[in-house]
Each structure stands twice: as structure tokens, then as C-alpha cells.
């Protein structure tokens, strides 16, 4: 789903393509509510974050109370309730990454992007977050940028990676687990 493609939503904040995708997801399950987590990602990808309109749109398509949708969404870490940058950076700060110096990497990102954890750069390119173990500890210290995994980070490597994202593209990561 892409905000630039197809018809933008009107009343409920979701395009007809997004609504169709949510209905397709619902049809996969014996109980349609099982599609809620995935449906929220469809909305988030289209709108950029879970705006009140996006939540209302999901609730409408899935025939669920808005309060229920909000309550479920607020439980999970990967939903955004305010706008985020084009690329969300998640720096793992769990044990294996901590043992391998993730503190230094996080500090470097803060200094370079001039933002704190939870903030977005003024040009709206990057949002900086921390994450719990991302199940890629063999690459520690590591981070995700969007869906892409980057590991064995050093401050120099972080700089090189950020340049590749700075123009808005999403290059494929060169780091893959063994």
C-alpha cells in the first residue's frame, strides 16, 4: 500500500484499495477480527501513522468499536500514533547489542541526526527509536531502517548507511545473517 497510489480516502481516511486489502485479509480467517493487526499496518502504511481517521477507517471496515481498535493498537510497539519520518530507525539495545557497544551507536545517531530517541528530524527523513532484541544478535550491534537490517555497526558505517537513505531511497541492506 502506498499513499501515492490510487484513490485517497475521503470520509474514513482510507482509500478504496486499502479497504479492499483489509477485506481480503479478513477473509483469510475463520474470525475476521484476526486480521486486525495486519489491517492496522495497511492503514499505517497508507496514512503514514495511525491517525484518528485511520483508526476509524479500520473500525468501520472491520465492524469493530473504535475504542476496541484503539485499545488493541496501543498495546503493540510498532504502531505510530503521530507522524514519523520517511525512514524509521530502530536501534537494538538489548543484551547482545549492549555487549557489543550499541550505546556508542545510539549516541552517534543522536549527535548526527541532532534528535533524541522518539524524535523525527526537521526534514522528516528519519525517526529514531530503540528496539528490544531484533533476533539478529549475530550482527550486533545492529539496527533496522524501515525493513532493512544493518549490522556490525561502527559510527563510520552508520554514516555511510545514512547517506544512502538520505535521498529518500530505500537501498537493500548488504547485511544478512549467516
Amino acid at each position, binding site marked *: 500500500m502506498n499513499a501515492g497510489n490510487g484513490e485517497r480516502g475521503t470520509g474514513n481516511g482510507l482509500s478504496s484499495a486499502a479497504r479492499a486489502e483489509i477485506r481480503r485479509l479478513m477473509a*483469510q*480467517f*475463520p*474470525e475476521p*477480527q*484476526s*486480521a*486486525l*493487526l*495486519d489491517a*492496522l*499496518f495497511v492503514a499505517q502504511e497508507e496514512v503514514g501513522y495511525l491517525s484518528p481517521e485511520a483508526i476509524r477507517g479500520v473500525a468501520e471496515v472491520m465492524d469493530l468499536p473504535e475504542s476496541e481498535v484503539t*485499545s*488493541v*493498537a496501543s*498495546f*503493540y*510497539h*510498532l*504502531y505510530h500514533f503521530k507522524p514519523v519520518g520517511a525512514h524509521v530507525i*530502530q536501534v537494538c*539495545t*538489548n*543484551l*547482545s547489542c*549492549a*555487549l*557489543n557497544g550499541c550505546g556508542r551507536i545510539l549516541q552517534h545517531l543522536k549527535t548526527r541526526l541532532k534528535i533524541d530517541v522518539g524524535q523525527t528530524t526537521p526534514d522528516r527523513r528519519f525517526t529514531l527509536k530503540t*528496539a*528490544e*532484541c*531484533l*533476533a*539478529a*544478535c*549475530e550482527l*550486533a550491534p545492529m539496527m*533496522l531502517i524501515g*525493513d532493512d*537490517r544493518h549490522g556490525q555497526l561502527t559510527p563510520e558505517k552508520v554514516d555511510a548507511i545514512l547517506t544512502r537513505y538520505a535521498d529518500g531511497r530505500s537501498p537493500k541492506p548488504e547485511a*544478512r*545473517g*549467516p
Partner: protein
Amino acid sequence: MPESFLLKYISEPDQADLETYLSRGGYAGLRRALSIAPEAVIDEVDKSGLRGRGGAGFPTGRKWRFIPKDPAITRYLVVNADEGEPGTFKDRTLMEGDPHQLIEGIIISSYAIGARHAFIYLRREFSTARDALTGAIAQARSAGYLGRNILRSGYDLEIVLATGAGAYMAGEETALLESLEGRRAMPRLKPPFYPAVKGLYMQPTAVNNVETLCHVTWIFAKGYQWYKAQGTPILISVSGHVARPGVYEVPLATTIRKVIELAGGVRGGRKFKACFPGGSSSAILPEAYLDTPMDYDALPKVDVPGTMLGSAALIVMDETACMVEIIGRTVEFYRDESCGKCTPCREGTVWLGQVFHRMLHGQGRTEDLDLLSGIAKGMTGTCFCPLGESVPPSLNASLRFFRHEYEHHIRTGRCDVREKYAA
């Protein structure tokens, strides 16, 4: 290095392709399983001795026998692909590198319990695994390994891929089912909500870990006698201060020392200090325990309460690791991931977090050590689910083996480990 099976083709770039998978013997185990009765499939898994690789180590065959056999009852298989235990990365590795190995295991296992729907609950961040599995499911379906009348056996199965949304708690099987039903990932009360009795949509459900199901594939590809003769393979995720972190396939009960050696030993010639043998939910062990076998029964028998094999994530720490900092980090993790349902866990982790915060910021108090032990005691045996119970083991073990580090922090307000090794 022992020969590997589950990881055998993991680095081959074309292994995700059905043709290649078939040419390497893939789906032969499925053919054999479909040619015998479901009950006989369960028998064979029983005889293989396979135990769950998700953390609890429950015998897989026995778990499946709890599922009622009445064909009128709808049954489900749910694959736990939410891999979130700190230090664990074997499931992600298996799914990215060899997705058909998992799909084949899912089909055999679903057949064994009479499920016509299987659901994979995949951690959302695993985008590479998601693509690999989506591709493998589509290929398997068009080749007749999924869908109606699989390989003309009369057996039908659909696999649905669902993703989580970021919550460690969702890895616990009953919380996972809540999440898969589109709700907050809060655990259910056991009993009555044992998944095998009242699982997904209140129907009998087998919840199994990714690696567990990959073992099933091999048991049917080669037979349980062959499988046992391999010394019961297990995947160990080795990380931290080792020279070659990664997933290692070893016979069950290989010692911690041997596994560290396989991973290239402690990095940079440093001295070993301690390890988590089974993810952050196990107690930590110092050097004196290095010869303990990494086994379901041997680890809990050592005299450090809460030691376990868990998800077989071996996190190695050398002399440069400050134990106060490390245990403080685990406390924060459980605090942030606590679902808030019960008081000992919700409040206990917050209190512990405050004590660690002041100790690590030069404001520790003499009475803090007793306070830590007291809170840990209050959380032992009182939490609703194992998440809360995971906090005291490593905390207590660190207070026992590395008490001097806590005392130094409190007395001087500084970290001698950090000062000694500051680069």
C-alpha cells in the same frame, strides 16, 4: 564441527526454490507421513524424543496427543514464529534460508493432529522471512503440497500467514492466541485455557515453535531411528563476546564450554565472565558451570535456581561486562514488556528498575541489595505468567556471584569494570 541437518542448506541461495528443495530430497518426508495414519505420525514423533524448541521443552508427541481425535471437532496448528527471547535468532535464520523445510513440517504436523488450517504468527520485523514464506506457500500450493487433496491423499490444508505488531509477550502461547484473534497480547489462565483444549477460537490447538516443526521434517525425511542416532540435534544461538556469533547445530547436551569453542571462543583473548545459557529468562552462570551440558534436564539441576535451556540462546559475557549494567538492562526489558495484568510483575519490575537506575547513576544505597532480593522474592511464584517469573533468576544469580560489583557501585558511585576497560 558436527554435521548439520536443519542448517544444511541454509546458506544456499536457491534453497527457497521449490525445485531445488525437491532435488535435495524435500517433501519426501511429507509423502511418507501422508501414507501412514495420523496416529502413526504422532507415534513416530513420540519415539524421536523431540521436545519443543520454543522454550518450555515440552515433548511434542505428547502435546499432540492432548488434541481430541474426533473429526467433527475443528482443530488448528499455530506456528510460533514470534521469536523474541533476547539472544535468540535461530527461527529467523531457518525461515529466511530454508522456508520449505518449515512448510513441510507444518503440513506433516497439521496432518498428525487433523488440522485443516494452520496459522503462522510471524514477528512483524521479519520482512525477509515474510517474503520467503509467502513465496514458499505459493509454490507449495501450485505444486499440490497445499490446498485440497494434498498429493491425492484426501487431506486438505491451508496455511495463513499473520504478523504480530511488536510485543515480546505475544510469544507466550496463550497471549499469542489472543493476539492472533485480534486482541491485546495478554495471557490466558491455564487451566482452563490450555491451547490443546481451548485454543484458537476456543478450539483444540497445537502451538509449536518454528524449529520444532523443522525437526519434524527431518524425522520424516529420514526416520526416527536415524534422527536419534544423530544425537538429537538442537540449534543454539550464540552471541555476545564470542569470536564467531551465529546459529550452531550441535547434539543436545553439548557442554557450554564446547559450544563457546565452536563459536570461536571468547573474543580477543579476553577472560570468560558469565553467560545466559537459555536467553535472558534463564539465570546467569559463571565460569564454574562451563562444563554443564546444554540440555533440558541438566541445566535446571545446577544449584543456581532458574537455570534452564529455554530457547537455547547462549549469550556470552567476558570480563569487560558490568553485571549491574547487564542485569539492569534485563530488568528494563521485562518492565517495558510486562503486559500489566498482574501486580507483582507490573510493579516489581518498575521498583527494580528504579533501584538499578540509582545504582547505575552513583546514588545506590546500602540497603538496596536487600531491597533487590526482597522484590525478587516477592515476584517468585506470584506472577500470572512466566514473563514475570523470568526476572528473579538472573538477578538472584548476579547478587550471588557478582555481589562485589553491586557493592562497588553503591560504595563508590562508580563502575570499576568500566573504568578498567574503558577504551
